[in-house]
C-alpha cells in the first residue's frame, strides 16, 4: 500500500483578510512536508485545513491509498494530529487517555502497544498520574504518543518540538523517522532545523 496526500490550489481568507492562496503540494509515502512561516502567516490554519477541521476558501485536500481516494469517514482511523490547540483529557491518567483513544479509533488491539509507547516517550513512571497535573513538556510527549498510537498513515504535527527538552526532542525525531517508513508526515514549525527535515516544503509569507 502506498499513501499520498495532495493539496490543490488551497486558499484561505477570513472575511477580507487573505491568509494564503494558491498552495499546492504533494506528499508521497515516506515523505515529510514542512510548513513554515512567520507568526500569523497561517501555518496552523493550513494544518487544520489539511486535517479537515477547517474548510478552505478555495481548493481542496485529497488523501489517497494507492489510486483509491479516501473518504472523510475512512480517515478517522488513518490520520492523526497533535497540536497545541488539541488537548487530551485533564481528568484522565496518561494510560486512560491512550486506552480511550485506542478504543474510539476502533483499534482495540493497540491496547498492548500503550505501555511500550509510554516507555518510549519516557512517561511509563507517570502513566497512572492525571494528565492535568503533567508539566507542559510531559503533556507534549503524551500528545505525540497519542498521535502515533494507532500507527497512522497520515501524521500531522503542529510545533512538535515545542516545550521539549533535548531528550524529548530526540524521542520525537525518532517517532518521526518511524512514521516516515509508515506513511506521510506533515509538520508546521518555525524552527530552522525542523524545516530542514522536509522533503517537500511550503513557506507561507
Amino acid at each position, binding site marked *: 500500500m502506498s499513501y499520498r496526500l495532495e493539496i490543490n490550489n488551497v486558499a484561505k481568507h477570513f472575511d477580507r483578510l487573505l491568509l494564503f492562496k494558491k498552495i499546492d503540494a504533494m506528499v508521497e509515502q515516506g515523505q515529510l512536508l514542512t510548513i513554515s512561516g512567520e507568526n500569523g502567516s497561517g501555518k496552523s490554519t493550513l494544518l487544520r485545513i489539511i*486535517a*479537515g*477541521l477547517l*474548510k478552505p476558501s478555495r481548493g481542496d485536500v485529497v488523501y489517497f491509498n494507492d489510486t483509491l481516494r479516501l473518504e*472523510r*469517514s475512512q480517515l*478517522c482511523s488513518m*490520520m*492523526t*494530529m497533535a*497540536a497545541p*490547540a*488539541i*488537548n*487530551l*483529557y*485533564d*481528568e*484522565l491518567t496518561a494510560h*486512560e487517555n491512550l486506552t*480511550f*483513544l485506542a*478504543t*474510539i*479509533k*476502533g483499534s*482495540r488491539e493497540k491496547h498492548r502497544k500503550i505501555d511500550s509507547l509510554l516507555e518510549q516517550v519516557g512517561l511509563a513512571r507517570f502513566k497512572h498520574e492525571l494528565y492535568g497535573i503533567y508539566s507542559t513538556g510531559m503533556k507534549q510527549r503524551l500528545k505525540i504518543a497519542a498521535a502515533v498510537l494507532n500507527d497512522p498513515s497520515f501524521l500531522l504535527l503542529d510545533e512538535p518540538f515545542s516545550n521539549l527538552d533535548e531528550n524529548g526532542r530526540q524521542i520525537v525525531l525518532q517517532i518521526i523517522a518511524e512514521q516516515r517508513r509508515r506513511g506521510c508526515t506533515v509538520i508546521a514549525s518555525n524552527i530552522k532545523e525542523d524545516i530542514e527535515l522536509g522533503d517537500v516544503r511550503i513557506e507561507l509569507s
Partner: protein
Amino acid sequence: MSYLNESFALLKKDIKCELRTRFAANAIFLFAFTTLIVISYSIAPYRIDEPHRPFIYATLLWIILVFSAFSGLSRSFVKEAEAYTEDLLRLSTQPEVVYTGKMLFNTTLLLLLELLIVPVFLLLMNIRVGHAHYLILLLLFGGVGLSATTTMVAAMIARARVKGVLFSALSFPLTFPLLITLIKGTEKSFMEADIVHWDEVRVAVAYIIVIGVLSLFLFPIIWRD
C-alpha cells in the same frame, strides 16, 4: 459492534471524568433539590384541592426534572470545547459515535436524577401513585427523549457566545410536545382510573424515534461545520 463499542467507550470516559469533577452532576442535582425543597414547603399537599392534585403534581414534577436537566446537560459539548478536546474527538471518531456516546451519558445523568428526585417528591407531596408501571415507563422514555433533544441542542450551542440563553431558547420549543405528553401521562398515573391505550407512552416512544433519526442525520453536519 464497533459503533456501539466506541459509543460506550465515550460514555465510560464521560462518566469517569464526571465522577472526578462532578461538572454537570453538581449543577443538576443542586438545582433539583433546591427546587424540590422550595416547592414542598410552599405548595404542601393540603394547599391544593383534591381533584386538582394529580395535574398540578405532574406539572411540578416535570418542571423540576426539565429545568434541572437544562441546567446541566448543556455542558456536555461546552466542556469539550472549553478544554480543547473537541477536535480530538472530531479527528478520532465518527460523528454518530459522538452523538450516541454523549446521548447515553446525558440519559444516564437524567435517569439518575429521576431515581433520586421522584421518590423524594412523591414522599414530600404525599402522593399515592395509581399506576406505578405507567409512571416508570414515562420517566424512562421521557428521560431518553429529553436527553436525545438536549444532546443535539448542546452540540449546536457549544461554540456560541450566549450558551445558556440559547440552550433554553432552542430546547424549549423542541421538548415542548414531549413535555405536554409527559405531564398528561404522569397525571393519569397519579389517578386511580384505568389506563387503557397507553397513549402518552406511545407518543414518547414515537418522539424518541423521530428525534433520534433526525439527530443522526443532522449531527454530522453540525459537528463537522
